[in-house]
């Protein structure tokens, strides 16, 4: 049976969070596996979806009870500032 990468592992790969060896192995797999390449494309499509969602939250976040300011909360290390 062919081993394929789960989405979570492909996320680590594309965000550069894999070990060097893991990255080399994954890269080699992707070259010969259209199925995993397709999953990577899906993740890129999801990125665009999220761009739209964040734009939506900036204009209409109050409706959903999600406050998204112009300055990213990600810059704060204090969970109290994260406003979830």
């Amino acid at each position, binding site marked *: 049976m062919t081993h394929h990468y789960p989405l979570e592992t492909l996320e680590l790969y594309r965000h550069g969070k894999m070990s060097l060896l893991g990255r080399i192995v994954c890269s080699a797999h992707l070259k010969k596996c259209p199925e995993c390449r397709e999953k990577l494309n899906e993740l890129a499509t999801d990125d665009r979806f999220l761009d739209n969602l964040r734009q939506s939250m900036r204009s209409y976040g109050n409706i959903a009870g999600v406050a*998204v300011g112009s300055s990213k909360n990600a810059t704060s290390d204090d969970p109290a500032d994260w406003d979830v």
Partner: protein
Amino acid sequence: MPYTTNKSLLARVRAGDEISWKDFYTTYAPLIREVGRFCGVHGHDNETLVVQVMTDIFQKDILARYDPDHVPDDVSFQHDPAKGRFRFFLRGIARNHARNLYRKYRKFDAFDENDASPCLHDEEWENVWDREWRRHVLAMAMVELRHRVRPKTYVAFEMYAVKEIAIEKVAAFLKCSVDSVYTAKTRCIKALKEIVNSLEEA
């Protein structure tokens, strides 16, 4: 959050539920304001636009009877499917009022083809409306998502994918693995797309 129900307002409109002035105002005023701004209807006129659209949708004489800030909850709106899909129904009403207010502001009555305000041009108006409508629908889909997935999944998604907090911080805050945050993201996007499709269908 404006709702106690797990259904977004659009889903309730579609289901033929009676919608109160307050719920409608909370949900659709931001959309009308935003579209108005793109058309050059600003400041006081922008708020007038919201009130005019609202009174058109509810009852034209409502302002004669109530202060717009204190309209009783039993004053409600129920969309009549015979008037077409709600998004187009609202689009038509919003455009009429935006155009009238914009022309009043610009102090001209005749059509000026060099004026670029989207409310004066069919295609531009539809582009602006459709873009803002889609964003607005996404916001309502988030309302439903909150009730469709586990609270921890929702929070992971909101922190990481919407607020763009570093994944390691999210995982540490929620005491879970980075993989779990990615899983939450994938799961929520899938659910959101389903919700958006169902909201856009009717």
